[in-house]
């Protein structure tokens, strides 16, 4: 098949990535729960091991083609034509790498902050890692759905067991929100499966030409799942609660990977499978994105809770991502994908940072801080890097992504570009205000005498800092992965699908 | 043709029905158990008419001998005096009556349509020749060996389960 390149590694690298953390979880299961140090070290060992295994992906990926690489395919449930089918292209590869990296950082940052049920905690982290990688690797819709849902359970536990005071509410909300969306997607998947002649093959489905009405309804079915995960306005309200209540590692995984899965879903499914509907829905999607950017940003200005503020900033930043994707041009889409990565790095870093200080103060209220820069200078310097990347300062990764998105958005719709650009101003406003209230001004009694971050925390934060500057200064290293895949995807979106006016189209016209 | 079988059947059938009614209507559980004992003997006799000596024997040994004794033990463990003063039936017993009557009617109605299937190989002659127990044993230990083993397992579990359930909880510390 022209869309597939065989796995030249001679080694099932993607399966190893998926199952190595699972093996780690099983090993942890067998360990004595009283020996917490051993548990932590084993968890670290397996996460680092997975990361090391994933590195060859980065170096051996062929950037000159949009074809799927490192492909593995085995029949799984032949009677339903379900396959164990894995592969990576330029869109997904970066997220696999980010997942393996983030898992290490999560283990590191949770080293001392998790005090109860340590064993179960690290098992959850490893299982989440496995599911994250699985989501990005799957080329079979059924397999994808399994990983997609499998991710929910450990995530639900992470929030509900190790979270803050209001954790059960947040966990249930998170679970129900995402499940409702996923179930609608499942209906969509089954519809596609039956229509396409009983196949779950994502690549084959991406070549189908569906009638417009069907595309229209499928688009909204998928939208339900992906928009909740992103989260787009107005289905974003689970995110602040989940982020706020989740333990540090949970927030980091949520921010860095989980909410990327929504945007990834749009890229992998909505756009190539439903090109015409995607084109027709562009105004709606761009509109929602712009609302999210401004709405999320303005709401941040009134937050008093550290993690909640960063959570709402995620809404704003993910608005940029969806804006870029639905700009449907090269700059927007590459910017969007890069910004997904950036947001993972930056917001992941911010949550790691907040976690580091939360371990010391056990308060999330911004008002309880102040003058942290005097007591923790190293920490303050690292946090300012995340802050600046978050507001898109040139030479940090945030700039490259946001610039390309705004350029693409401006190209697609000038109003969208102009309105979204105000998000940059608002972003600077709330992030710098946050930084000022936490790090500057007179030292608050509650933070006086705190110790600066140690080597372990530094090890968790530094990779993010390095990535921020790496992508900011030399983004070609990362953009290079996606050129071909994005070009291919855009070709599909622009000439795929059937043409013709339909009922759904008219409905949309009236709505507009 | 003699009317004798019909007369015997008439007696046993009416006795079984009357005894059943007695079992479920007695206030004192001990009386119920006693009537049930008598009921089981009648049922065993009925099996004899049907050339099922072994089953009849088991009916007496297992039901009358084992299960009913068990019931009796339990009944005696309980507080009989209180029981004698309490109401027999629940307040809404007519509903139960209605439902059971309806079931009886539907079963009886179904009988009207009942057509027996083709006959098998185990004629009365064969059973009488080989003896009932041996025939049964042959079938049970060949064709039904596996279910038989499972039945033994079920009993074992029941025994263990009963001990565990009925045992007094050990006080922790």
């Amino acid at each position, binding site marked *: 098949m022209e869309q597939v390149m065989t796995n030249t590694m001679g080694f099932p690298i993607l399966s190893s990535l998926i199952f190595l953390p699972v093996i780690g979880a099983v090993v942890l299961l067998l360990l004595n729960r009283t020996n917490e140090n051993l548990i932590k070290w084993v968890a670290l060992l397996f996460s680092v091991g997975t990361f090391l295994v994933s590195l060859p992906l980065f170096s051996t990926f062929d950037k000159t083609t949009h074809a799927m690489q490192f492909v593995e395919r085995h029949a799984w449930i032949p009677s339903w034509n379900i396959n164990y089918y894995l592969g990576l292209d330029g869109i997904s590869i970066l997220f696999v790498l980010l997942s393996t990296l983030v898992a290490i950082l999560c283990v590191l940052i949770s080293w001392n902050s998790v005090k109860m049920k340590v064993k179960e905690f690290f098992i959850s982290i490893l299982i989440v890692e496995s599911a994250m990688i699985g989501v990005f690797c799957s080329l079979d819709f059924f397999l994808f759905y399994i990983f997609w849902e499998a991710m929910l359970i450990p995530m639900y536990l992470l929030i509900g067991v190790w979270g803050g005071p209001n954790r059960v509410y947040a966990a249930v909300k998170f679970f129900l929100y995402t499940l409702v969306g996923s179930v609608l997607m499942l209906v969509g998947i089954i519809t596609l499966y039956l229509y396409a002649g009983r196949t779950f093959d994502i690549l084959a489905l991406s070549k189908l030409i569906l009638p417009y009405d069907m595309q229209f309804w499928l688009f909204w079915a998928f939208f339900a799942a992906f928009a909740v995960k992103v989260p787009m306005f107005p289905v974003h309200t689970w995110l602040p609660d989940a982020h706020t209540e989740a333990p540090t590692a949970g927030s980091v995984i949520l921010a860095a990977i989980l909410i990327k899965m929504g945007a990834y879903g749009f890229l992998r499914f909505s756009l190539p499978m439903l090109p015409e509907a995607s084109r027709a829905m562009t105004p709606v999607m761009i509109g929602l994105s712009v609302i999210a950017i401004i709405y999320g940003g303005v709401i941040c200005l009134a937050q008093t809770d550290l993690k909640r503020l960063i959570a709402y900033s995620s809404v704003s930043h993910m608005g940029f991502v969806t804006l870029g994707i639905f700009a449907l041009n090269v700059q927007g889409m590459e910017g969007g994908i890069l910004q997904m990565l950036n947001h993972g790095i930056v917001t992941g870093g911010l949550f790691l940072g907040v976690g580091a200080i939360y371990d010391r103060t056990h308060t999330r209220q911004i008002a309880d801080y102040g003058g942290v820069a005097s007591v923790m200078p190293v920490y303050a310097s690292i946090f300012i890097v995340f802050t600046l990347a978050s507001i898109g300062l040139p030479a940090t990764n945030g700039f490259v992504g946001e610039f390309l998105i705004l350029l693409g958005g401006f190209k697609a719709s000038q109003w969208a570009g102009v309105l979204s650009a105000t998000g940059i101003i608002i972003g600077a406003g709330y992030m710098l205000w946050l930084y000022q209230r936490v790090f500057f001004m007179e030292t608050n009694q509650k933070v006086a005498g705190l110790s600066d971050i140690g080597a372990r925390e530094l090890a968790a934060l530094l990779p993010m800092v390095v990535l921020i500057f790496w992508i900011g200064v030399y983004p070609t290293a990362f953009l290079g992965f996606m050129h071909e895949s994005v070009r291919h995807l855009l070709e599909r979106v622009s000439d795929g699908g059937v043409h013709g006016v339909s009922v759904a189209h008219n409905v949309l016209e009236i709505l507009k | 043709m003699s009317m004798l079988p019909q007369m015997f*059947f008439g007696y046993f059938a009416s006795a079984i029905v009357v005894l059943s009614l007695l079992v479920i209507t007695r206030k004192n559980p001990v009386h119920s158990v006693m009537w049930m004992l008598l009921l089981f003997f009648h049922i065993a006799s009925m099996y004899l008419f049907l050339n099922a000596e072994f089953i009849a024997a088991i009916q007496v040994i297992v039901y009358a001998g084992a299960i009913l004794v068990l019931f009796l033990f*339990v009944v005696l463990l309980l507080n009989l005096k209180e029981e004698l003063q309490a109401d027999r039936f629940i307040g809404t017993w007519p509903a139960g009556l209605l439902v059971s009557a309806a079931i009886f009617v539907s079963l009886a109605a179904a009988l009207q349509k009942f057509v027996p299937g083709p006959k098998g190989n185990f004629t009365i002659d064969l059973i009488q020749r080989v003896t009932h127990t041996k025939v049964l044993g042959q079938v049970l230990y060949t064709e039904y060996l596996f279910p038989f083993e499972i039945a033994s397992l079920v009993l074992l579990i029941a025994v263990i389960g009963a001990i565990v*359930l009925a045992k007094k909880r050990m006080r922790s510390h």
Partner: protein
Amino acid sequence: MVPLNWYLLLSAAVFSIGVFGFLTRRNIIIMFMSIELMLNAVNISLVAFSHYLQDLRGQILVFFIITVAAAEASIGLAIIIALFRNKNTVHVDEMHEMKG
């Protein structure tokens, strides 16, 4: 010869009486006895079938039913003992732990 249907009618009658007992009695032990009644009703029809159809499988089934009845009785009675120990009653309508 007694017709098969007579046996079946008897079986139906005993079964219905068992149902009636189970549905209306308050004493859980009597309810258990009602269950035994119903089982016996089934046994009667099985043996009758076996006889009239000249097929031993009916009796094999009776054999297993008796086994299960024995197991059920032992477990059930054990439960009753445990229940009585905790609640000090054998009256079913006084137990409503499962109330929603």
